[in-house]
């Protein structure tokens, strides 16, 4: 099976949220609360246990500063966020039950019949995607419409996208398409358009990648994400040092202590057998 991916092009997004709705309907995702956030047109705010697609509304106003306004112009960008389906997926590595697997399409999938809701994937995702659904107890995130892909169909969000902002296809093809698109945008004068795909980090690239304008961090897309596995070696080494110190200290203490013991200071309350 070919490795598939998502290319989400924010320069084509019109913020209609059809992807959010299509995802909710197809995957039977429950209500994620209805709150007026006051943050642009975004009342969803983040991906989570009951949000697998989330349209971000990035408003950039000129910043007031010392000596006049900053150089930025007002912009209003939309970008549909989704699970990144990392090449080195923190959640997949962390999952102790083997519930989270890599599918034949290269995507990262939480098997709902295995997950026991330990919550370790939640603190292993560098993008804050996967979360535990409180009333259900299990962890949920984008399935990359595994069921639809199995049947040869494209994911519901890509199917519903009216502008072609969400592109689904073979990962290699999408990467070439993104390069073509960025060249075209730069030629048209949109010089702040960039591709976000953290290939140079421990995440090793993502299967869902993004074309955004300006600093990707304004979309909560970190430039230097890190998978927890990168910390394992130093942390286990420290544990080994601690374990060694504990054995050495107790051996020395007891050995010296017993030599000095006369029985007077010893266990008086309990008799020895």
């Amino acid at each position, binding site marked *: 099976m070919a490795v598939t991916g998502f290319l989400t092009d924010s320069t084509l997004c019109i913020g209609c949220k059809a992807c959010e709705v299509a995802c909710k309907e197809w995957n039977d995702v429950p209500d994620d609360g209805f709150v007026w956030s006051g943050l642009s047109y975004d009342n969803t705010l983040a991906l989570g246990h009951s949000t697998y697609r989330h349209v971000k509304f990035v408003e950039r106003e000129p910043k007031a500063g010392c000596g006049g306004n900053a150089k930025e112009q007002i912009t209003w960008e939309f970008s549909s966020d989704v699970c990144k389906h990392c090449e080195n997926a923190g959640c997949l590595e962390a999952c102790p039950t083997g519930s989270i697997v890599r599918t034949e399409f290269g995507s990262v999938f939480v098997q709902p019949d295995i997950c026991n809701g330990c919550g370790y994937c939640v603190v292993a995702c560098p993008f804050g995607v996967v979360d535990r659904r409180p009333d259900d107890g299990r962890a949920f995130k984008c399935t990359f419409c595994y069921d639809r892909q199995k049947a040869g169909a494209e994911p519901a969000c890509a199917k519903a996208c009216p502008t072609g902002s969400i592109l689904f296809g073979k990962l290699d093809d999408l990467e070439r398409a993104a390069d073509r698109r960025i060249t075209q945008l730069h030629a048209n004068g949109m010089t702040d358009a960039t591709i976000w795909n953290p290939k140079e980090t421990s995440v090793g690239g993502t299967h869902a990648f993004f074309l955004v304008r300006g600093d990707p961090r304004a*979309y909560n897309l970190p430039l230097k994400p890190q998978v927890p596995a990168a910390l394992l070696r130093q942390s286990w080494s420290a544990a080994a040092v601690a374990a060694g110190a504990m054995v050495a200290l107790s051996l020395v203490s007891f050995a010296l202590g017993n030599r000095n013991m006369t029985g007077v200071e010893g266990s008086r309350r309990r008799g020895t057998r």
Partner: protein
Amino acid sequence: MKPHIPETRLDEIREQAALGRLDADGIRPPGSPFPEAISYYGLPLVKAPVWTWEVPLYFFVGGAAGASSVLAFTAQLTGASPSLVRDARWIAAIGAAVSGPLLVLDLGRPERFLNMLRVFKPQSPMSVGAWTLTLFGAATAVAVAGETVRLPRVGDTAAFLAALSGLAMATYTGVLIGATVIPVWAKHARSLPIHFGASALASAAALLNLCGHDEPALNALGLAAAAFETYMSIEIEAGNDIESEPLRQGPTGTTIRIGGFFSGPLPLVLRLLGIRSKRARRAAAASSLLGSLITRIAWIEAGKASADFSRPD
């Protein structure tokens, strides 16, 4: 005359301030907006841990039990009093028996706890921990059973396995939270296993003290652990990295300090007095136990605060 600071330099300072690393001493132009990190409306980047009270309590109980099994083994090896060995084995076994239910309770689907043993994944500290606790639970139970039914060879073999897995029990929880994306935990991935290990050792020595054992070795171990915990508190206070802010500020900072005081300086002084005074030893033991529990709670809560303040970088 006011010094002229060009807009480009201000942008530079904003960038640095957003990362919490200002190199410009004294340059905070009056009336200028405090620079914010570049992020999506300041919403958190990573999700907060979903763990509730069971997890820090398990860290405390499991750690104390693990260190206790290490003390049981080393005490026996060096010919300490059999009653000390027996009590240490019992503490380990009871702690292990309590640990399992605590972890099961924390699951979103407790009835599926056996799925933890579906696979063994060395790359997942949670998986390593689940298997360690299973081995530890079995070994500590056999160790006390072997002693009770007078099968010393079986008991001693089990006690050796309990000590081995106990070493992991006392330290792996530091790796468990250290190797994550939570900024404050990840920042301390290297020190957390030692911190939790010292805390576990102090608790085990304290529990044996409170069971009526007054071996100088226990006081010495408590002293060493308290000394390390004091050092850890100083290190946290002396740091100025933005990731560790939850350890120094707000309710989590206060809790860390309280936990640090009861695990570090207070038992350190009491243990020194405890070389002569039995009452001081008992007080040190109580203080260490309380400190160890508060410390684990504080670290989990600091992780939650840290996630809420996480920004992309």
